[in-house]
């Protein structure tokens, strides 16, 4: 927990930047859209999503404790389950419960 003021500021920044992104095309590109913007809009989502996975796992310490094994197993489960069933909610629920069981019961 950090100071409520800082939290409030960060939420305002996130809201402001999201609103800006959603409104910007309507203001800027009513006539035509630069190719570079279209290109970035198409490819950035793919690159950012793998970055976010790395971001989520950034504090995993491979050299000590459980050597990142619970994380690796749970990610593997999500990948296999999602490839098989293509159901986002199922993958998230099963992956999270499995991971919680691993860190609370197995790798204590």
């Amino acid at each position, binding site marked *: *927990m*950090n100071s409520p003021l*800082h939290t409030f500021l*960060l*939420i*305002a*920044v*996130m*809201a402001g*930047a*999201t*609103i800006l*992104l*959603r*409104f*910007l*095309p*309507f203001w800027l*590109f*009513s006539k035509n*859209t630069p190719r570079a913007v*279209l*290109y*970035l*809009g*198409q*490819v*950035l*989502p*793919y*690159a*950012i*999503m*793998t*970055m*976010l*996975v*790395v*971001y*989520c*796992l*950034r*504090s995993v310490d491979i050299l000590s404790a459980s050597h990142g094994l*619970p994380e690796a197993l*749970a990610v593997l489960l*999500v*990948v296999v389950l*999602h490839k098989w069933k*293509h159901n*986002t*909610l199922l*993958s*998230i629920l099963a*992956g*999270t419960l499995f*991971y*919680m069981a*691993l*860190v*609370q019961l197995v790798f204590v």
Partner: protein
Amino acid sequence: MNRRTLRRAFFSSLPVMAGYVVLGTGFGILLCSKGYSLWWGLLMSLTIFAGSMQYVGVDLISSGAGVLSTLLMTLMVNARHLFYGVSMIEPYRDMGWRRWYAIFGLTDETYSLVCSEPMENNPDRKDFCFLVTLLDQGYWVLGTLLGGILGSTLHFNSAGIDFSMTALFVSIVVDQWDKAPSRLPALLGLAVSVCCLLIFGPDSFLIPSMLGISLGLFLLRRRIEGADAKPGRDGESDGKAEGGGA
């Protein structure tokens, strides 16, 4: 606005309801597990209204991230919204006052519902787009509310619940992996961020990663667009609506 339009909007939005209520609940519980009250969650869901960004936001606010990294993170994670906006310029042009809210609430899921609405011979299109956006945000806020209540009343060992965010992103990557016209952007994102993590460490690798990814995407533009032009994998030739998460 008549009852028939509302019915149509409601039935079209049912698939989103299931997803948003559950993901919103997850968000509410996650935020609660970090010691934030329900009101913070509602504030975020009412003002930000971007699923994956709000999950990242939990992490940013609870770790006391800086303003600059929060700003850059939001711009990168939500950059795909530029693209949605570009394709909705014409359809939303004549929507009057409803336009403001419809643009504010143009999430991935809302986009997927409104982008297929025909422009011609469709008198209730403006109301439909507006109502779908409103219903979607309603589901998201409802989920957040449920999560906040559950998180503060049920007491359980929540260790490991953060993994819901990892699982969300991993499942999105798996979807994108099958649908993307080129897999280079996903691999670039992974390689650059792992390298930056090793070089700069967990607390300061984000900004260099985002810069590196943007640079890399432009350097590899010819190869990536080359893959784009070919008849895509599984018959997919455009990845426009496939990117991103909730």
